[in-house]
């Protein structure tokens, strides 16, 4: 079976006055339909930019996708014209964004915005679309959905707005839903509700979900597979069990070490990854993480490690020393 989404050697660059920002560097991976993929990494590591590259919504100028292929359902999205791409957006791939406070247009009612998204891709009358919009709002768990269609975004709470955004994203039942840090701007109880909602919807509707976050806790709960990104490249990838239990990349280990744990001594200090991510304007020759890594050797500074499959299937890591690290643990 061909995968739903297959990305090959994706490169995205921002051509600024200070130089070329290498935001996404040779990212390749694939996603099966119905799968939940988590993409994690710290701020500025290219998570969002690579998702926007799939949708071809990278701000241009200054951004440009300089290389690669994005195959969705047997179609290379990067070869499509803007007109054809418009049909893909929202219909095949939908996206929800980080800040629910600004992702709904304040001058239109919530219902109007969902109806608009519906009518864009479906041949529906206004009445049918309105009915469907009501159903969608009910599906994402907004009480009194029918009536709340006529509310303006400012009358919704943050969590409700994010639910409304999800309803809009689901309006055409896309094959792939990209959620770009959908819970970051929400408080913890609402986060849990949104995570439950998305898991429930995924089970009901069966679409694939790409969940972009920097919260490893949220992702552990819902993802099937995880891609860890650093400086615009995937440095470790595998199923959830492998990533959490058989961590092989020192950066992933650092990320996991920085999470507080319930089964730990409350007095214990949290680990942090020392240093800052590299400047994307001038990436080092060797491994991008080398400067902050405790396992660094000459080779790391000289040569970039490839993303290799290890331990059989379902786990890949880009590190020269993963075997030593596995042994030392």
């Amino acid at each position, binding site marked *: 079976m061909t995968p739903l989404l297959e990305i090959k050697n994706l490169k995205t660059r921002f051509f600024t006055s200070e130089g070329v920002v290498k935001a996404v560097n040779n990212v390749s991976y694939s996603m099966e339909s119905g799968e939940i993929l988590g993409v994690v990494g710290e701020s500025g590591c290219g998570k969002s930019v690579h998702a926007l590259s799939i949708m071809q919504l990278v701000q241009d*100028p200054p951004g440009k996708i300089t290389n690669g292929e994005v195959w969705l359902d047997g179609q290379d999205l990067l070869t499509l014209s803007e007109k054809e791409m418009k049909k893909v957006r*929202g219909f095949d791939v939908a996206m*929800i*964004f980080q800040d629910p406070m600004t*992702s*709904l247009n*304040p001058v239109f009612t919530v219902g109007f915005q969902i109806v608009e998204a519906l009518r864009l891709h479906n041949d529906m009358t206004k009445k049918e679309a309105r009915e469907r919009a009501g159903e969608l709002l009910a599906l994402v768990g907004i009480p009194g959905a029918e009536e709340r269609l006529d509310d303006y975004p400012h009358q919704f709470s943050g969590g409700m707005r994010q639910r409304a955004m999800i309803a809009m994203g689901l309006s055409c039942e896309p094959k792939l839903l990209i959620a770009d840090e959908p819970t970051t701007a929400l408080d913890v109880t609402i986060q849990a509700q949104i995570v439950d909602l998305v898991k429930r919807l995924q089970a009901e509707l069966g679409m694939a979900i790409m969940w972009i976050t920097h919260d490893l806790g949220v992702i552990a709960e819902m993802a099937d597979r995880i891609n860890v990104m650093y400086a615009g490249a995937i440095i470790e990838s595998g199923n959830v069990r492998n990533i959490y239990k058989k961590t092989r990349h020192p950066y992933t280990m650092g990320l996991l070490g920085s999470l507080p744990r319930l089964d730990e001594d409350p007095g214990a200090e949290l680990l942090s990854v020392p240093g800052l991510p590299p400047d994307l304007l001038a990436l080092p020759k060797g491994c991008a993480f080398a400067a902050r890594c405790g396992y660094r050797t000459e080779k790391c500074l000289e040569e970039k490690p490839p993303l290799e499959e290890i331990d059989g299937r379902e786990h890949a890591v880009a590190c020269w020393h993963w075997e030593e690290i596995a042994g030392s643990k």
Partner: protein
Amino acid sequence: MAEITTEEITVTDFAVREHRSLWVDAWRRLASSNTARLGMFIVAFFILSTTFSHFFWEYEPKKDLNYSLKLKPPTLIPNEEVPSVHPFGTDKLGRDIFRRVVHGGWNSLRVGIVAVSISLFFGGLTGLFTGFYENIDTTHIERLVLFGLTGLVLGSLSAWVAAQPIQAIFFAILGVIAAYFKNFQKGKALRMVVFTIAGALIGAILGAFVSGAAALISLIWGAITGALLSRPLDGKFFSNVMMRLMDIILSFPGYLLAIAIVAFLGPGLEKGMIAIGVVGIPVYARLTRSAVLSVSQKEYILAAQSVGEGHGRIIFRHITPNILSPIIVQTTMGLAGAILSAAALGFLGLGAIPPEPEWGAMLGDSYRYLTSGAWWAVLFPGLAIMFSVLGFNLLGDGLRDALDPKLRT
């Protein structure tokens, strides 16, 4: 301390909760402000009185002459000297100033509305397009339109200098051709040479039909236009050309430019409208553009793109309603400015052609008689200008407070 019983606590019924739009909120804030109410009252009075006066009497300025009633003071009760009622007195030709003020108001209102519409339409569209296409990848058709437009605008300048309107169309075509060969990656220098020569030739040939000087000027301007059109073609370039053009218009003092345009077009109320309108274009263009630039960065615009909405829809459905508030305020203030400008042009004899009444022209006709004691001939048109401008400004201030984005939640 008073005891609070449960009966005193009222519970809001959620079923009857109203769906309040931002505009309704803004209207409530506007209606609750005293200055805005005063402004609205004056503006409404001004509009209604000048509009409805047509239903009560016909005013024919050419027939309204009576030398026997020259410069009579305000008269409410007819007497032997002044047999008819003249609440505001009469002017040097014995015309009733009250009627002329009311009818002149109709002219001022027309000038205001038409001039502001011209500024708003051209300035607003310029701002919308330059702001939106500044940071967005253009499709092929958009490029053809944008570069056709750039050619048309640049060409119009040349056409104006060479008095050959057809030139503008030729340059527009040159722009479209330039956009069509966007993927002409190799030979950038060649491309530049070809377009520069083409532009120079179009200018020179068409200019030569008028005069040698016109041919020379439009040769130079045509070469510049051609060279500009051979540059990398994207939204940023389009927005640069348009906004620098706006800067050029803005660099002239407003009244001076308006007088220059009227001098070029010839006097008359309609010419005055065009002149005042053109002078106002860059103000609206800059205002709109800055608002568009900030709204374009909002996530809901990205969200609209991500559900597959096209550029046109995003500009007019999503961006436009969100930038209306500063534009509404500016338009209201602009009406006051346009009325004042029209009066200034009229005072200088460049606005309405006599005997058509116009407030500024009435002042210009009558100020000489101030020394001989005919204060009424100057006072009433002056008051009319003052109050109408004050009304629009108060309303604009009120609107600014009511539509203040900081009050939005």
